[in-house]
């Protein structure tokens, strides 16, 4: 028995990390998702920022995953190979939809079209004139009845100039930014903490739903508690998990007239 432990231990110590060979062929973009990208401006100006738009058009009934806590799947990722001095900000995500499947499986997903925006800071030292080519790789998992991973390898080509003009996609980018949830306004949300529970109340909401971030504190049963046709949502807290100490996520509010509003929440228990 002890002898048999040695190879196991050695394998554990060496680690099982292994990446696919670099020369592996890039799979062709899959029809479940069509990926495209654009920029807010036609040129990059030294010392200024521009917005990058990542667009995922999904075939009917297929979905992509949100960046929060999900039981399955993984969210799209964008990897930029930036030149020295160029800095990209975090991806700006819209609010996903709650998606409950048989077996109590809960995900937060997007259908139709997903627009992500990312800020790109152009360094002051960027030389005016030459075109800058930024390689990028995008990965996603699209699911319907089945799940299919997808990948796009392409590049962003930007001319560095002293002046710039907005691109034809500027309105789409502004629309995408307007869909990003904002922090709950001061005093608009009432939270009541009791032993093992937290209740969220929004006076003008007719329905509420909570979508936790990955590092949100543990919640006992979001399939049961996570959505209600009322302005008061009561969540049972789960067993404490190291590193997850705050109620973090998106609060969707259904308002009269079929309008929805989304706030971000990031609050310490009792706060």
């Amino acid at each position, binding site marked *: 028995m002890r002898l048999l432990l040695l190879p196991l231990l050695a394998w554990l110590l060496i680690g*099982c990390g292994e990446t696919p060979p670099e020369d592996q062929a890039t799979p062709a973009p899959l029809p479940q998702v069509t990926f495209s990208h654009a920029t807010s401006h036609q040129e990059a100006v030294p010392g200024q920022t521009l917005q990058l738009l990542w667009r995922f058009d999904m075939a009917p009934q297929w979905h992509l995953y949100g960046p929060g806590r999900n039981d399955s799947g993984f969210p799209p990722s964008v990897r930029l190979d930036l030149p020295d001095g160029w800095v990209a900000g975090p991806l700006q995500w819209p609010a996903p939809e709650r998606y409950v499947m048989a077996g109590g499986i809960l995900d937060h997903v997007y259908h139709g079209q997903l627009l992500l925006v990312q800020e790109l800071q152009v360094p002051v030292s960027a030389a005016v004139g030459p075109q800058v080519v930024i390689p990028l790789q995008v990965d996603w998992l699209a699911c319907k009845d089945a799940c299919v991973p997808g990948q796009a390898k392409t590049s962003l080509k930007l001319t560095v100039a002293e002046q710039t003009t907005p691109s034809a996609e500027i309105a789409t980018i502004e629309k995408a930014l307007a869909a990003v949830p904002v922090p709950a306004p001061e005093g608009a949300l009432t939270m009541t903490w009791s032993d093992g529970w937290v209740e969220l109340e929004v006076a003008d909401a007719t329905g509420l739903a909570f979508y936790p971030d990955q590092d949100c504190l543990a919640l006992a049963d979001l399939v049961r508690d996570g959505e209600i046709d009322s302005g008061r949502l009561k969540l049972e807290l789960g067993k404490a998990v190291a590193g997850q100490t705050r109620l973090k996520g998106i609060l969707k509010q259904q308002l009269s007239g079929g309008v929805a509003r989304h706030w971000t929440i990031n609050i310490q228990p009792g706060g």
Partner: protein
Amino acid sequence: MKKKLITRAILTVLAVGMLAGSAWAKAAPGDEAADFTLTDTAGQAHTLSNYLAEGKTVVLEWFNPDCPFIVKHHQTHKTMNESFARVKDNDVVWLAINSNAEGKQGHGLERNRKAVKDYAIPFPVLMDPEGKVGTAYGAKTTPHMFIITPDGKVAYNGAIDDNRSAATLGETNHVLAALHDLMQGQAVKVAETAPYGCSVKYAQ
């Protein structure tokens, strides 16, 4: 001891029957593991409590041959086969379970027989088309891993490793780490992680 095991098995079989198709259960570390009998792709029946009565530690792997995460661990990287090879002589039984419902991805005896052959799977793949066992354990993804110790308790519930992508392996194989702890007579250090993969395709 055997009588105690059989008694517990009867109780937990009843529990599976009560849970199936309605309530949602989660086999948390320390919980009693629900007993089950399922048939593999070769037609052989497997009963959890029989393995436990023989002193075996049982690894359960939720399986869907067409899920990209299963392809990652069974074809691209052979994680499951290699992990099993490292522990099979230590009184460890490894059972894959397919709880996908009829008509869903990866369902069906023929498809799974082919997968056993194509992936050269050296352990049984059990068919659970009604999802009763998957529901009893709260299996959410393929793969979703559980370890049951001979005393009938859940010792681990979670992911196979710590990389949620459909291509790249993690740095730590949680199942082997947990088995290593158990073989050394220690408590499992990481007994629960978030599983990842495709959702199990239960019947609606």
